[in-house]
Each structure stands twice: as C-alpha cells, then as structure tokens.
C-alpha cells in the first residue's frame, strides 16, 4: 500500500510531522513502513512551459524545434524528440541546469546545429513509472490538462513534491488498505481527530430504481449490492490532482469515471465497479454463481472459462462482470459512455479468492475483498463516487440508491479486565490510561469495576478476542515501556537428552578425525532419491515441485555428499572429507507421514594424510573409512556389537564394500564409490559410509565403571598362519578368541602377505596375541597350553598352518 502524505493530510492533521517522523511512528506502532519516497528531492529546475510554436527541425526528421514560454520575458528554444509535442500545449520543462532522477543534469546543447535550452519532459522522465502513466502520454511528453501558468513549479503541479510511504501490511491489518484506515491509525498514534468525507450527491431526475433492477441469487456470496445511476456523463480526463494522487498511490489514471471509482477504492477501501448502463441492455442486474464451463470475456479481452465456485454479475442473461475481480468487455465504460451504473457491493472473501486464484487476476479490488471489506462503508463509497462523478464528469445522479440484500453486522463487543491486561503484559497500567488508548482509536468503551468493554468498529475486523485488545494497548502504549522480566515460578533443569548429547559426541569425534560437516538438501531428483539407499522404497514425491532437481525426498544422504565432493574436486580441492547427520524419509504409504530416520554419512576422497617435505602421502582407502567408523563405535562404547560383512550393494565397488552390522542386524554400509559412478562426476577413488545413527545412539548407553589395571605382566605371542586366500581375517579372529578363553586379552593382525613367496591360492596372516592373568603372573607353560589350543582350533576350523 502506497500512502501519499498529501492525500493523507486531507483526513488527519499531520502538518507538524515530517514524512520520516511519521513513518517511524507508524512503524513502531505496528504497520511497517518499508520506505519513504520523496520524488521531488531527486529533481530541481522543472517548470511549467507553454509551447508557443513548433516547427520541424531543419536537419532532423524526428526532432521538433519549439519556442517555449517558461514564464520569462523571452521564450526559450527547445529541441524536442517526442512525437506528440505541439504548439498550444502546457508541458513540463526541465530548464538548463535542471536535475532529473538519476542525477541527470540538463545542459545547454546543440542538436543537429540547433540550440536547445532545456528539455520537455515525459512523466517517466519525472520519475513516474511508465506503467502508471496515462496511456496517451506513456509514449511521449505529458500535457497539463488544467489551467497552469508558465514558470510555476511543475513538480508541485504534478504532486511530485509529495512523500510516498510504502506500507508493508500484515494479513490482519487489511483495515489499512485505505486512506481512511491509515488516517484512523495515524490519528490514534498522534492522538488526533479524523476528518472524513460526508458524501451527499445532488440527486435529480427519475428514481434510479426505474433505470435498473437488482436481484441477488447467491446471498451468501453477496449479501449486499448497492447501485447508483449517473446519467449524461462526459468521459474525459479526471482532474490533474486526482490523476497525480492516483499515480502516487500506484494506480494508473484512465478517464474520469474509472479514476473516480479507483479514487474511492483507495479512499474507502471499498472496491467499486462502473458499468456502462446502456451496454447492460436489460435494465437488470442478477448476481449468481457461474455455471461450470461458462465462457466470459473480461475487460482485458481475455476469454475466461468459469466454474461453479465463482460469482458473476449478469444482466439476467449473460455475465457482465466477474464479481469482485474484473468487469466484462461487454459492459465496460468507454469513450462513448453516457450513462453509468456504479456498483458497490459486499462480496465474500472466499468466493473472490476462488476466481482471482483460478484466473491469476490479482487486482486492488480482489485483494481487498479477499481480506474482507468494511460492510459499513459500502453505501458511503457508492454515494462518494456518485458525488464525484457529478462534479468531475458532469453527470446527473438519479435519485436514490438501488439496494439488494442487507448486511449490517453489529459491531463486536470485547471485554477484558485490567488485571488480565496487566498480567499478560507485565505492566501496571491504570484504567484511565487504557480508556485513553481506546478513545484514540475511536473505539467506544464502557467500564464496569475492573472490566472494560470495547465496541469494535466493523473496520477493524481483526479484533475479536481479549488478547487483541491487549495488543492494541501494548502497541499504542509502546513496547519500549514494557519492563524486562524473566518467567517466575518453578525452575526447571535444562539440558540435552542422551540422544542429543550422543549426536554431538559423534559430530565432535568426526570433526576431530578430520571431517568437515556438510549440510545438503533433503529434496532431490527422482534419479537420486533412492540412490545408495540402505533401504529402498518408492520415493516420497512432492505434489507440486518447483524443479525436477527438488521433487523427491531423499532416502540416503550419500547422493548429495557425492555431489559436494565432486563440486570441491572440480575446484582444485581434491582431498575431501565430509560428513553429514540428517534425516532420510521412507515411504509408509499414501497420506501416511513418511518414516524419518536420522543417518550419519560421509565421503572421503583424495589424500587422507600427507607431509609434503618428508615425502609422505597416504591416499584414503577402505580401511581409512573403516577405522573412522570403528573409532566412532569405540567412542559410543559399541565396539563389540559392530561387525562388518562383505556386501555388494548397488552403486558401490563390488569387491571393496561391507555391510555394517550392529548386533548382527544391518545398520549401514561402507565402501568405495563404484568407479563408473565416480567417473561420471569426475571423482577419483572415493569412499562412502552411511549408518543408521538413530539405532546406534539409542543403543549407546554406557555406564562407565572402572576396571582394575592388571597388576601382573602380560605375555605376547606372534603367530603367522597360512590359509586359503578366501579365508577372512574375521573368521580367524573369531576362532582365536573362542579358543583363547579368558587369558587372551588382546588380538590384532599385524601382517598380511599374499604373493611370490606363497603357494598359489594361499596367503599368510600374522596375529599378535596378548595373554594376561589378572590374578597372578602367567608362566610360559600356562600360555603354551592355551596357545596350543588356539593353534589346534585354527587348524581344525580354518585349515590354518603355522607358517614355516
């Protein structure tokens, strides 16, 4: 909503407020003023000129040589390029030395050999957007329609010396979608009176009801329809003050009749429509629901196909307007119009929204109906338009209004006690102060004991409950005056849940291990939705995605991490270690909330560790990732419950991928990104992991208890075993553990060899075993006995021989 300072000052005395001061006060009281534009501040030296003569420029076809009276003794010569310039016009002249918006300075110039002392201006050169220029001047220079005097300030004549406040309105404050509404707000802020127009058109001739009959067939959608008839209008431009105020309010002037309906719309917030009475033909208006598939040509000459949830104004036979949205081409006011029907109606918000949404027609009118107009202004607005048409279009207002329906809702009464008001706000207001605030708002009040009852005018439909009164008081009393306190009563211990703490532990661990945390998008493409997923389901789709790239919910964090790694790799950052924690979404059937699982995933590629001048460089490999996962499990106290099993999921290298098991149940995957996929995104060897973080964190409940440090020395034995190449280390380890019993406290692989010195199909795996007895010093004999058992078990279960 653009509010002209000059226009506003018709209704409330703001002479002592600069536009900036006013803007700040309005903002602090609840309606944000996004900006204050003062067009004249960017311009100077622009006066009214009278074109005394015009002749063709001797050396240029498209230029005119004009002599312009600018209020001085001698006229000045100006070369003008506009097609529509002619002798006898009053125009805006930027004189030599003038400045136009954009700091465009006008200098004396010679154009094709002819001197030019200034410039004749179009409206857009004076800072008015061309979409707001009256059509006849949009392509050329502007002509003043009224009496103006050469030499007078053209910016003042054009109301360019106005200040325009741009209000950003929240949906509840549709009352401020009118100059009168803003006037009430400003009056409340400043504690002043509101001066409103009191329309009283001079009526003459026959009753309007003889010219038109009105019937409403859809009273729920249109409870009230008021019309007036103005005869014998002369279509022409509206007065300059009206045109310029409309442009300042962001409305394009057309002709006097249309401008008046728009002017009253901006003034009252009540949308009006002017029909050419003669083009309605039947002398009848019938309001009804549109028929399904009904065709209708709106005044923008577009044919619309209507549906039954839209409302039309008809002449009893065919539609003449789409109610509250746009008139029809068949009944539009044009240059030949003589008799006008003014429509002022109350249309239901939803029915208007249906039509404006279906046809993509958002207008000043539809916006107001959708948010709800003030029913008490329907009649006054109609009268006001009739009065202005009599004055500025030379028409005769027929006597009386034609009214169909009735809609005069009682103003709501809302009560609140002073105590509740003060306890909600934390203030210590007195009743007198509260009453004063409502009187500034022009709300009637009644006080009984501790309770105040407010009669809320229909223009403020947003106020319905006691809390709304609290807000009115708070915003006008001023939030700055509310004290700073903290909630009283029972104090609670705050904190993270064990799950949330665990998540942070995992994050810090990975960051300490060298990973940067990534955050990627949850929405993805169809192709990526189930890629790398631990559990593949029909992906969950958005109903109306904005792009194919963001149309489905992800089932794995990995696709976007691969993308992030590829992004970095393509920018000379080939060594990447990224992790992410986040949700994935599993389809549970239509209309059922998907199952959201929290996952932990990561990618590493390139060099994992390097020390350049010492010539050390270690590329990331499968075991780098595995070590990271094992470390995380150790940090969560889950080491013994995690295991790894060779697996061949899609998207991974079939020989370098493992399923991660937790308590023997699948909980994740680690492995190399399939080389052909890596090639697609220009990545070198890359390793991925994804784990069900929620499963791990819900299981991770460690009760730390100290285990005594062994007081007796341990004995280590190394064994090198020869086994078939296919035998996995994990199997050997399990056998050793089982056979080793309680004395065997530690076991790890320290060498693996497969090659020339081995028999084909065989490999050597070497383990270091540590034996400890917590209760006494072990003897060699005791260890040997256990060790023999271990070797025997290995021989029996894995056909493992000691390497010679």
């Amino acid at each position, binding site marked *: 909503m653009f509010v002209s300072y000059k226009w506003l000052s018709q209704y409330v005395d703001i002479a002592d407020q600069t536009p900036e001061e006013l803007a700040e006060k309005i903002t602090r009281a*609840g309606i*944000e003023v996004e900006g204050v534009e003062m067009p004249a501040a960017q311009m100077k030296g622009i006066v009214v000129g009278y074109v005394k003569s015009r002749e063709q420029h001797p050396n240029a076809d498209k230029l005119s040589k004009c002599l312009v009276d600018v209020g001085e003794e001698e006229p000045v010569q100006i070369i003008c390029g506009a097609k529509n310039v002619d002798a006898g016009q009053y125009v805006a002249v930027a004189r030599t030395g003038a400045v136009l918006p954009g700091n465009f300075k006008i200098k004396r110039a010679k154009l094709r050999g002819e001197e030019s002392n200034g410039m004749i201006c179009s409206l857009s050169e004076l800072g008015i957007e061309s979409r707001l220029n009256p059509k006849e001047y949009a392509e050329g220079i502007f002509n003043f329609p009224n009496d103006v005097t050469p030499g007078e300030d053209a910016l003042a004549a054009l109301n360019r010396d106005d200040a325009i406040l741009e209000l950003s309105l929240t*949906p*509840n404050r549709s009352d401020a979608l009118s100059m009168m509404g803003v006037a009430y707000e400003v009056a409340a802020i400043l504690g002043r009176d509101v001066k409103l127009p009191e329309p009283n058109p001079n009526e003459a001739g026959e009753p309007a009801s003889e010219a038109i009959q009105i019937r409403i067939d859809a009273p729920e959608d249109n409870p009230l329809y008021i019309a007036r008839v103005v005869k014998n209008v002369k279509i022409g431009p509206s007065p300059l003050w009206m045109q310029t105020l409309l442009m300042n309010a962001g409305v394009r002037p057309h002709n006097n009749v249309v401008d008046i309906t728009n002017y009253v719309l901006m003034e009252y917030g009540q949308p009006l429509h002017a029909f050419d009475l003669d083009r309605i033909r039947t002398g009848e208006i019938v309001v009804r629901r549109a028929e399904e598939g009904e065709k209708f040509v709106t005044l923008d000459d577009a044919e619309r196909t209507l549906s039954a949830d839209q409302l039309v104004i008809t002449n009893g036979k065919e539609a003449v307007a789409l109610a509250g949205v746009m008139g029809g081409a068949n009944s539009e006011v044009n240059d030949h119009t003589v008799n006008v029907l003014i429509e002022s109606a109350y249309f239901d918000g939803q029915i208007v929204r249906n039509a404006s949404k279906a046809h993509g027609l958002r207008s000043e009118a539809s916006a107001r109906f959708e948010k709800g107009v003030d029913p008490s202004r329907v009649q006054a607005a109609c009268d006001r338009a009739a009065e202005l048409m009599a004055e500025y279009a030379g028409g005769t207002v027929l006597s009386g209004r034609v009214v169909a329906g009735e809609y005069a809702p009682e103003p709501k009464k809302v009560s609140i006690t002073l105590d509740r008001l003060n*306890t*909600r*706000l*934390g*203030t210590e207001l007195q009743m007198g102060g509260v009453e004063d605030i409502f009187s500034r708002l022009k709300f009637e009040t009644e006080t009984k004991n501790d309770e105040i009852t407010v009669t809320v005018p229909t223009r403020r439909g947003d106020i319905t*409950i006691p*809390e*709304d009164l*609290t*807000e009115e008081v*708070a915003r006008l009393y001023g*939030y*700055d005056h*509310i*004290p*700073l*306190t*903290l*909630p009283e*009563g029972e*104090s*609670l211990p*705050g904190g*993270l*849940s064990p799950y949330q703490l665990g998540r942070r532990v995992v*994050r810090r661990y990975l*960051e*300490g291990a*060298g990973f*940067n*945390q*990534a*955050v990627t*998008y*949850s*929405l993805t493409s169809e192709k990526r939705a189930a890629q790398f997923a631990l559990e593949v389901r029909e992906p*969950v789709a*958005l109903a*109306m*995605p*904005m792009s194919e790239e963001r149309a489905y919910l992800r089932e794995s964090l990995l696709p976007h991490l691969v993308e*992030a790694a590829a*992004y970095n790799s393509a*920018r000379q950052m080939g060594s*990447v*270690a*990224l992790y992410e924690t986040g949700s994935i*979404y599993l389809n549970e059937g*239509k*209309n059922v*909330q*998907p199952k959201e699982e929290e996952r932990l995933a990561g990618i590493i590629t390139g060099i994992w*560790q390097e*020390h*350049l*001048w010492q010539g050390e460089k270690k590329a990331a490999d499968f075991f780098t990732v595995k070590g990271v996962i094992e470390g995380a499990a150790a940090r969560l106290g889950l080491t013994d419950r995690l295991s790894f099993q060779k697996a061949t999921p899609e998207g991974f290298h079939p020989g370098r991928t493992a399923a991660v098991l937790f308590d023997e149940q699948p909980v994740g995957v680690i492995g190399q990104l399939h080389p052909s996929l890596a090639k697609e995104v220009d990545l070198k060897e890359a390793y991925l992991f994804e784990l069900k973080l929620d499963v791990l964190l819900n299981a991770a409940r460690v009760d730390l208890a100290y285990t005594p440090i062994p007081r007796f020395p341990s004995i280590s034995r190394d064994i090198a075993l020869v086994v078939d190449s296919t035998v996995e280390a994990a199997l050997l380890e399990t056998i050793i553990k089982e056979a080793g019993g309680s004395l065997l406290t530690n076991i790890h692989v320290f060498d693996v060899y497969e090659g020339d010195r081995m028999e084909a199909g065989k490999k050597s795996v070497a383990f270091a075993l540590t034996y400890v007895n917590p209760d006494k010093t072990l003897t060699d004999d005791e260890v040997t006995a256990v060790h023999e058992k271990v070797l025997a078990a290995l021989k029996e279960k894995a056909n493992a021989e000691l390497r010679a």
Partner: protein
Amino acid sequence: MEEQLKQLQDEAVMKAAAAQDLKELNDVRVAYLGKKGPVTEVLKGMGRLSAEERPKMGALVNVVREAITKAIETKQVSLESEAIQKQLAEESIDVTLPGRPVKLGGPHPLTRVTEEIEDLFIGMGYTVAEGPEVEQDYYNFEALNLPKGHPARDMQDTFYLTPELLMRTHTSPVQVRTMLKHEGKGPVKIICPGKVYRRDSDDATHSHQFNQIEGLVVGENIRMSDLKGTLDAFAKKMFGPDREIRLRPSFFPFTEPSVEVDVSCMCGGKGCSICKGTGWIEVLGAGMVHPNVLEMAGFDSTVYSGFAFGMGQERIAMLKYGVDDIRHFYTNDLRFLQQFSVHE
C-alpha cells in the same frame, strides 16, 4: 720391578690419553688391566717375592692400577661427551620446517549457531525438542490457528506432498506436539531447532530449505515482559553485552500480541550497511501464544499463558560471520566450511 711398573703406568696413561675413541680406549684397558695384561702378570709373579716385599709390592701395584683406571675413566668421560656432542650436532634439524599436519575438521556454521543457541537456552532451563520434518497439515497450520483458506497461509508458501501432508514450514508443529504431550499441565519450556522448507527460488537471500530455532514457554502468568527479558538476555549473550532489543508490533496467526524483535546493530546506532542505517537489525519473530493455540493443545487459556519466539540460523550466521549469500550454507565448499573449524 718397581721401575717396570712405573714404566707400565706411564705407558698406559699415555696411551689412554691418546685414545681416539671408546674402542681404542677399551683396547688400552684390556691391554694393561685385562686378565692377560702386564699388571695382572706382575701380580701373578708376586708369588716369587719375599714376604716383606710382597705387601710393599702389592700396594704399589694397586697404586699403578688405580692410576691407569683413573686415566682411562677420565678419558672415557671426555670421549663420551665428545661422542654425544657429535651425535647432537649431526641430529640437528631445521625447526622452522612445517610440522606433520593433524587433520582438522569442523562443524558446519549452521550447527555452530544452533548449538550455541541451544546451550544458551539450556542454561536458562530449557530442553531441546525435535520433531518430524514431514508434517500433517493439522500440526503445521490448523493447530496453530491457521485453518484451511486462512489468508496468512499465503505468507508461507508450502511444499505439499498430499493435501494433508507437507514439508513443515516452521518448527512450530514441534511446539504443538510437545504441548499435547504435557496434557494441559505446565510448565513447558522448550526450544525446537530444525530444518524447515518453503516454496522459494534459491537466490542470495532465499533458500527453499533453511533452519529455524523456536522457543516456547507456557506456564501460569507468563507475561509479555518475560518474553522481553528472555530475548534481551539472549541478545546480550549471543551478540554482546552492549546489545539491546526493540519490539515492533507485527502479526503471526499463532501469537497475540505478535512482535518483530530487532537487535541493536554493532555499529552502535551510527548506521551501517548491515542495519541499512537504522541502527537496528531484525532478528526474531515472537509473541504471546494465541489462546486458540493453547486451547487446541489442551491448555486452559484462562489459567495458562505463554510466549513463543522464532529465528533463523542462516540469518544469525550471516549476521554473526558476515556471510553474504545464503547458498554458501548448502554448497559445502571446503573453502567456506574450513573457515568454521576455528574455535571462537
């Protein structure tokens, strides 16, 4: 014999002193004091001496032996010291060469901001509540006083999956779910961080996915002044002790009254590009929980009242770290992420 010993001593002492290294010195020791050395030989020959001469001679041998031993030991200390000096000299390194790098990762800036805010409110007695990102229309809108067809729904353009399921547009549904769990009994004191989604085209200031952290306090006699005091404490801890807050009336369907909360700019009100010359930066939306919301969540709005607030981590991070484009948070460029590995 006496003379022979004296000569031996002189010879040994001289050789010890002349030894070039520990091995040569050891050779001297073996040569003179070893089992087959001349001193031992002399001792062996003592049997032939008379009873008077034997103690005299014994004493003399001991003197000689001690003298040689001492000479060898002295030389040994000096040789060892030389050896160590030599070794140290050889082992000298250029300490200005770079160290072996320890890989340093770090949290995402949005996580940093989220955890910082979480910790700040945990310190004031809040717990952290979380909930699903795919929500039912009911929890995201209807229970928050936004019935179907409400004009304010336009303020939040929504990704729908079906007419009843959507990507949550704020973390407020977590508040609703938490209140319902409380079954009408206060107090409730939570903050709800999480990802939210809106139908926006991604550009420098818009992202279809972003983060929010919302707070909710419900109790008996919770006042607007409590909201103001809480947010003032937040602003001072988050942005600095000199910062102040300013409340401006606004509108949200789920709070009444509703306010926008500005934090004073670090320029101290002089006006800069961040606050666009106003001295204030818009950071939060807040308000007193709408009675309809309380009632729908099972709380008696005549007994209970509450306040709620919400902010965006992206906005806070942009202000705090001077990030100029919201898309940086989702590109995962290492040159961006690595800047946040530093402890603040």
